[in-house]
């Protein structure tokens, strides 16, 4: 179930992220993701399912949920997987998974990157990194296209005067929800 804090007169358009049958395919790596450092968010000991479901909501709470009733919030909540009983006896494959969540706040579009490390069905590390538009991102992301864009330096936003930015950082809510669901599907 995709969670949404939209006010009732705004329509949220997001496909429901489905879980596929467990198969022999390993999940594809999630492309290149930001390198992250631990922030000490309380995660150790929580079940992976609970955390992944709560992580996106937690991210929204951490970075100031929208107060204005006309602003729709877009939380990329994970769909807990009903599959279990993978060959190793754990529900989730050990590893590190991350996803981005985008939403609107009164300050503008915000995005966060959430990364969790799962070992033996326990989340041992969590990080939430907020990327406020107009502010400085903590990390410089290298593209899956092998850093081609890294050679183009550009200028920091706070050195230019603009009224808005055109790019692709505000990505589809449904897409993000699907990425979250895929992490849960890591059990497959």
């Amino acid at each position: 179930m995709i969670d949404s804090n939209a006010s009732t007169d705004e329509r949220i358009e997001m496909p429901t992220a489905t879980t596929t049958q467990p198969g022999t395919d390993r999940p594809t790596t999630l492309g290149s993701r930001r390198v992250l450092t631990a922030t000490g968010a309380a995660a150790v000991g929580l079940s992976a399912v609970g955390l992944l479901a709560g992580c996106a909501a937690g991210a929204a709470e951490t970075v100031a949920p929208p107060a204005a009733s006309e602003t729709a919030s877009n939380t990329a909540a994970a769909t807990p997987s009903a599959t279990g009983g993978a060959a190793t006896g754990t529900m989730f494959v050990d590893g590190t998974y991350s996803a981005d969540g985008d939403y609107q706040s009164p300050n503008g579009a915000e995005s966060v990157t959430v990364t969790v490390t799962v070992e033996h069905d326990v989340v041992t590390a969590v990080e939430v990194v907020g990327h406020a538009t107009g502010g400085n991102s903590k990390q410089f992301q290298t593209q899956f296209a092998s850093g081609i864009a890294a050679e183009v330096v550009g200028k920091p936003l706070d050195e230019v005067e603009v009224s808005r930015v055109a790019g692709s950082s505000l990505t589809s809510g449904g897409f993000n929800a699907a990425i979250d669901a895929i992490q849960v599907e890591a059990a497959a």
Partner: protein
Amino acid sequence: MTREHGARWRFEAIGTAWEIETPDPIDPEARATVRERIDAYDATWSRFRDDSLVARIAREPGAWTLAAEAGPLLELYRMLYAATDGRMSPLVGASLDRLGYDAALRLRPSGPPIAAPRWEDAIAWDGRTLQAPRPVAIDIGAAGKGQLVDLVLDALVAAGVEEAVVDASGDLRRIGGGIARIGLEHPGDPSRVVGVAELSTGALCASAVNRRAWGDGLHHVLDATTGIPVDRVVATWVVAGTAMVADAVATALFHVDPERIPPELGIEYVRIAGGRLEHSAGFPGEVFA
């Protein structure tokens, strides 16, 4: 970042965040008209619902009368299909499904890449009726959001709005006096810009492959002749008179070099390709190498 106008209306539609900025708040009747326009567009073109017209066309052969907006949209697609030697195509839905960008957003390939069918083989379009002897998966993602921005702006103008910026997260169009300075977001770092576009009345569309990437080399801009994601061009920005044209050409520039874009479309561009930042001589604004 300073805002141009006093009122901002934000909502989610067609899976992305929209913001409409106007000097005064938009009245409820105009908002309702905008929502209806978006709903109608989605009901026709959405690949992510099984009750849309394109979903039906993907299931059953037939002759289909399309809405009026399909005329200019498919005409533009036909032009760019020719200009890109078939690499940019509206018939790429099945190829996207195969790589995992399907209605359920499984984001996992279900097999090797497949090419889109050739236009001549799959459909006949006379400007109003689409004939498809076999089911065909149509995807207008390369230009549809831009067209919808234009249609939303038309609805606002019909409701009496005279100054506005309609911004659908990377596809925007502006009417009104003065000049807006719009940063061109660095595809690798949203806190930086690679240039600034100066827009008076017109549209600016941005396209980049970084965000809808779900695996190694898997993203949503496909070469229709192979079904495989393109890999040399990373980001494009196009200024044009309408958002539909800006959006479509922003995609086309992933497939071909700017010399192939028909000059009658009257566009200006910035592009990151092969590790370099390129731009047209007449691009309004500045570019930071």
